Structure formats: structure tokens, C-alpha cells
């Protein structure tokens, strides 16, 4: 086909474009994926029995704020990464997800330094370190599906980066849901095992992003 003909084909009968597609599909993906992750947490793992007490415990909210901050940072990165032409993402934005990780590590070191020698191993390993990262990765499945769908509605041009950041977003929201169940209250535990749980979908996103997000 000649390019002229092709152009008239493309431009014939076009309809006005909705400028809010990106915001709408990403928010829909997050809401549906988060509902999926919360339902899975409640059905598969169950709510922690002392949740009522936790709702007024500052340490619990500190715990929830860790994955929440990672989620916000990765969402702020995913927005430009899912559109063409935003190659100049600032270094500060790239590093944003590491901010909450550093904060949690500093708090972890402080809590280890203050704890008696015999308690330290417990703070790091808790009693669920073997399953925790895999539980988080499992809970991220609905979010991985919905976020992949949303990014595919858009037009990412750096597929590996977009995949990794989408995975991190899925993992961090899944971790927020997991806080409803997980009884671990050691800061070092979160800094290691929650982080690994969030990084599993991020690494998978980096691996499969180019295949899944291609357009």
C-alpha cells in the first residue's frame, strides 16, 4: 500500500481521544489488583487475630508505610515509563524506590543495636522467613496481571525498565495486603524478607517485560 493511501486510511473517521486513558487504566488496575491481593490474603492466609489492636499501634503503621512508600515511588516511575518520549526521567525519580528501603534499613540497624544479643537473630529471621517472600510473590499475581494489562493499553518504549517497575509496584501493593496477615513485627525482618518478596515480581518483570509489553 502506498503511504498516502495508508495515511488516509488511518485518518478517516477518527474519533476524539480520551486524554485520561492512562490515569484511568492504571487506577483501575491498582484497585482491581489490590482487591484481588486482599481477598487472597484473607482466604489463603487469614487476617491476623490481633488486627484490632494493630490498628492503633504506631509500629504497625510504620510497617505498612514501608511497602506503601515503595508503591508510590514505583507508580511515579511507571507513569512516565509507560509512555514514549520521556527518556529524561530524573535521577531522583529513578532512585525514589530506594528511599524507603534506606529508611527501613537504618531503622533495622538501630533496632538491632538496641536489642539484646539473644534477640537479634529473632528480629532478623522472625518465624516465617522461609515462606514470607514467596507469599508476597504469590499475592502479587493478580496485580501483575492487572498492571500488565494497564501498561499494555499504553505505549512503553523501554520494556525492560517498565516491566521491572511494574513488577515492583505489584510486589509492593501485594506486601501492603500481606500486612493484614503477617504477624512479624521485627523491622530487620521487613527490611530483608518483605524486600525480597517485592523484588521477586520486579525481577520477573525485567525478564518478561520485553515479551509481555511489546507492541
Amino acid at each position, binding site marked *: *500500500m*502506498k*503511504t*498516502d493511501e*495508508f*495515511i*488516509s*486510511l*488511518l*485518518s*478517516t*473517521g*477518527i*474519533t*476524539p*481521544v*480520551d*486524554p485520561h*486513558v*492512562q490515569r484511568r487504566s492504571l487506577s483501575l488496575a491498582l484497585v482491581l489488583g489490590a482487591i484481588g491481593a486482599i481477598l487472597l490474603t484473607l482466604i489463603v492466609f487469614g487476617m491476623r487475630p490481633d488486627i484490632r489492636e494493630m490498628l492503633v499501634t504506631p509500629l504497625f503503621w510504620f510497617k505498612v508505610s514501608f511497602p506503601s512508600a515503595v508503591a508510590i515511588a514505583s507508580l511515579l516511575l511507571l507513569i512516565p515509563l*509507560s*509512555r*514514549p*518520549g*520521556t*527518556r529524561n526521567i530524573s535521577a531522583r525519580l529513578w532512585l525514589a524506590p530506594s528511599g524507603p528501603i534506606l529508611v527501613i534499613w537504618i531503622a533495622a540497624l538501630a533496632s538491632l543495636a538496641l536489642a539484646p544479643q539473644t534477640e537479634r537473630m529473632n528480629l532478623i529471621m522472625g518465624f516465617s522467613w522461609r515462606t514470607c517472600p514467596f507469599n508476597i510473590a504469590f499475592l502479587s499475581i493478580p496485580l501483575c496481571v492487572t498492571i500488565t494489562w494497564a501498561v499494555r493499553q*499504553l*505505549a512503553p*518504549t523501554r520494556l525492560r525498565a517498565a516491566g521491572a517497575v511494574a513488577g515492583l509496584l505489584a510486589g509492593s501493593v501485594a506486601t501492603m495486603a500481606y500486612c493484614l496477615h503477617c504477624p512479624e513485627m521485627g523491622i530487620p525482618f521487613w527490611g530483608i524478607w518483605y524486600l525480597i518478596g517485592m523484588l521477586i515480581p520486579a525481577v520477573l518483570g525485567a525478564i518478561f517485560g520485553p515479551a509481555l509489553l*511489546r*507492541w
Partner: protein
Amino acid sequence: MTQLKVKAGTKPEMAVEERLKALILAGLDGDDSAYRSFLNELSGRLRAYVRKRLFHLQDEVEDIVQETLLAVHNARHTYRADEPLTAWVYAIARYKLMDFLRMRSRHDAFNEPLDDYVDIFSSADEEPANDAKRDVGVLLEQLPDKQRLPIIHVKLQGLSVAETAHLTGLSESAVKIGIHRGLKSLAAKIRLFS
């Protein structure tokens, strides 16, 4: 990309940016003719961009220009008025070019490159319509429905894209993509036969 940054500073490039931006924004609001002029002017710029980067593969240039136009069309909802249009368009062009080169290096091991399909099509235009129709009929049968039906309705029966979409139950952009891909594989088949 570095070359672009240098160019963006000079005045004529800014004028192009502004004109194209006004056209695409009108197009996004549903103005066909503004959108058509946008794509027309864009195709010239894309052709120059692709041609410069594919000097061994001049025969593929038009193909990539069309793939990129299609990509721009399908991604047009991701353009934001507060961003430079140049950066947006060239990110798509670069993406499509890299994609093409990657696919090509993968396919080259097995296939002979399809070099001059553009030429084949322009010479087919001069054939009498009856002859061409008969040949195309045979070849069309070999295409999958979602390519064959759009071509039959739009190209042979002269229906509009919207009517075809309605008839076939495909979306409008699926109809457009079907025609594009279908004509491409027809061109490849014609080449095999001749």
C-alpha cells in the same frame, strides 16, 4: 537522540514542532483533516529519519515508515500536550526501528529478505483492474479472516472503515491493522508467485 537535541535549538525545527503539535492536538479532538496533514508531514520526517539509519536496507524504509505511522496512530492517546512532540514521536520511531532490526536479525538466519515489495506494488497499479482482481482473489483466500475481510470490504467493495468494523465485528483499529498487515502479506505472496 543527541542529534535531535542540537536541532531542537534551531528555529526552523521549533516551527515544525509547533505546527505538528497544533495538528496532532486538533486530530486528538477528532479533526480528520488536521490529523491527515499531521500524518502526511510526519511521514516525510520519518522517512528521512529511517532512511538515514538504514542505508543498507533502503527497500525497507517505506515499510518501517508505515509501521511507525501505525504505532503513532495506536499510541496517540499517550501524547500529552505539555510534552515536546519531537521527543514523543522519535521515541516511537526509534522503538519501531530497533524492533524491526531485532526481528530482522532473528529472521535473517532462515529467510531471504523481502526486498522490493514497494516496487512490486507500484507496478501492480498499472495492470488492468480485471487481471489484478482475479489474482488477488486467489491470494486473498489464503489470508486469515481478520485480514481478508477488511481488505475485501474496504479495498474491493469500497466500504468505509466504520462500516467494515460494524459488519465484521472487529474494532476500527483492528480493521486498519488488518488491511495493513494483509496487504503486506499479499505483496509478499505476489512476489513468491512472480
